[in-house]
């Protein structure tokens, strides 16, 4: 016993620091372990069982790869995966483009800049669910603003329910997702733009560079690290985006907005097929992991070739 205490007793200054630091981190780490790490392991384990409502607390049978075979071999699986990635690329792409435009506008030297900046933030501040209720009303076919507007300008003839048709429901959900995600992207791009050294612009200006040229050759390369890391973060969140689709369409009509995360939720929580649901959850993690890895590798390689700084830590 005494030797154990002797062993744990810090000897050098560095060891004291390490011990103290870890003591401070321990509560947070423990919390994450309980709520994220252990559930992750448990999800993995459950994905090989036929757990359901009756056997959730124990007693489920081990079924090997059966869930995976069923999930991946399912008739709808390929289209769900394609849809999820399409949803992610489209939505993140739009968020990045809008974010860049918004940040550039808000960084410009105009009056009342502060007010404009604050006015852009509400979609991000307000609970996602409540923002979605607003969009639910906007998309309403008979009485919604968007339907009436498209009637007035002649895009549609008569009332049009945006969430009732496969194509329009999907793109409507994308618009709402972009609406919710853009403010944060804008805010971080704005900060990055403001961090670009002023003298770079002045030097270019003296040399007669146009605004567009300065944006392309100074702003973009300088904020590239932020764009790269924001895009990845945004991609992960969009891939996992649940509330927006759930409130707007619950994955419908006829599965047109069912992404992997919606499919996971439906299988696990609505059909009580916990094993099969866990399998889908594992697949979500795997796909996201593979995507992040490819993304970082390709950008690292591009960075070496073209001299970007790569992903910001």
């Amino acid at each position, binding site marked *: 016993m005494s030797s154990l205490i002797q062993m744990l007793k810090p000897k050098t200054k560095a060891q004291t620091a390490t011990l103290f630091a870890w003591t401070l981190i321990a509560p947070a780490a423990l919390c994450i372990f309980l709520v994220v790490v252990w559930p992750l392991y448990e999800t993995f384990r459950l994905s090989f069982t036929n757990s359901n409502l009756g056997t959730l607390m124990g007693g489920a049978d081990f079924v090997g790869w059966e869930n995976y075979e069923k999930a991946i071999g399912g008739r709808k699986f390929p289209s769900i995966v394609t849809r999820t990635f399409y949803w992610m690329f489209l939505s993140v792409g739009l968020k990045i483009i809008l974010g860049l435009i918004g940040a550039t506008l808000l960084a410009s030297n105009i009056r009342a800049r502060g007010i404009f900046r604050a006015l852009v933030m509400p979609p991000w501040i307000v609970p996602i669910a409540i923002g979605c209720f607003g969009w639910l009303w906007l998309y*309403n076919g008979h009485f919604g603003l968007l339907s009436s507007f498209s009637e007035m300008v002649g895009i549609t003839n008569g009332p049009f329910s945006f969430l009732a048709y496969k194509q329009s429901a999907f793109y409507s959900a994308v618009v709402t997702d972009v609406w919710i995600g853009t403010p944060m992207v804008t805010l971080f791009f704005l900060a990055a733009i403001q961090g670009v050294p002023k003298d770079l612009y002045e030097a270019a200006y003296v040399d007669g560079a146009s605004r567009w040229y300065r944006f392309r050759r100074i702003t973009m390369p300088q904020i590239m690290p932020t764009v790269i890391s924001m895009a990845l973060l945004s991609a992960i969140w969009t891939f996992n985006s649940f509330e927006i689709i759930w409130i707007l369409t619950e994955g419908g009509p006829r599965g047109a907005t069912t992404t992997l995360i919606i499919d996971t*939720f439906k299988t696990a929580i609505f059909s009580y097929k916990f094993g099969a649901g866990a399998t889908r959850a594992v697949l979500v*993690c795997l796909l996201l992991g593979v995507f992040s890895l490819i993304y970082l590798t390709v950008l690292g390689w591009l960075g070496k070739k073209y001299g970007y700084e790569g992903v910001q830590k």
Partner: protein
Amino acid sequence: MMDKYSLLHKIGLYTSIALFITFMLLPFVEMFIASLRPLTHLFSRPDVPLGETMSFVDFMSRFWSDKMSFQAYRDMWVTVPQLPRYIFNSVFLATAVTFFSMCFIVPAAYAYARFDFRGKTTSLTLFLAVNMFSGAVLLIPLYKLLRLYGLLNTYWAMIIPGVAFLIPTGIWLLKSFLEKIPYELEEAAFVDGASRLYTLRRVILPLAVPGLIVVGVAMFIGAYAQQFLFAITFNQDRDYMPLPAGIFEFIGYQRVLWNEMMAASLVGILPVLLIFLFMQKHLISGLTSGAVKE
């Protein structure tokens, strides 16, 4: 000179900003207008003959009525008697989540900001990797965990997952604030014989108050925003329901009371909007300071 714009540039700039902000605020404006309109007006359509496009006057008549009033803001409390409870629950849950997450965040952020120790980078990366997993992926085992400890259908069912998913971002944000506090102050305290814990409490924390407030507000907003998923899966008790889940009660079997639903939504977001209004300057600069390379 460089930042001067020609008139044409100026017009373009302001128009673009106006468009951008319109997109961001349109749903709120429409929510507000809908909340003012009586239900009969909400559910009326101008008679547009088949094959003809709607005229501008007809279009505007959809969003304007002489009978507009704040009646829905009175009626909603009658339609959903539990409404005050839902709003209270939302604020209470967000406050509790903020409080508990700060208890975890402050010591950990301090450790990352101040000490060099084995496994620092690895553990920080692992913390940030938590962002990879949304709550939706981990619902099943979380449900199991909460049921095992009898916490389903309590406030804890929504507080515990809420806290955990905010910790990583909180550590990362607060760390960049604490790093800006000069190290000499601590050294001076050490020299005077103060313990590490005493230094943290009496030297660092008072200096870190602005940072703590910004991170706290960010956590509150995050906690307020993320209630829906955990509420609909881990809680069936109406007494503990937060507003985003409770608002579904306006969707009846017969019809949706859109005006009251919009009114309740707007009242429900008032707490965060007010906090944001007062804090926005600090919040915007504070949130982004960590994102920019020095």
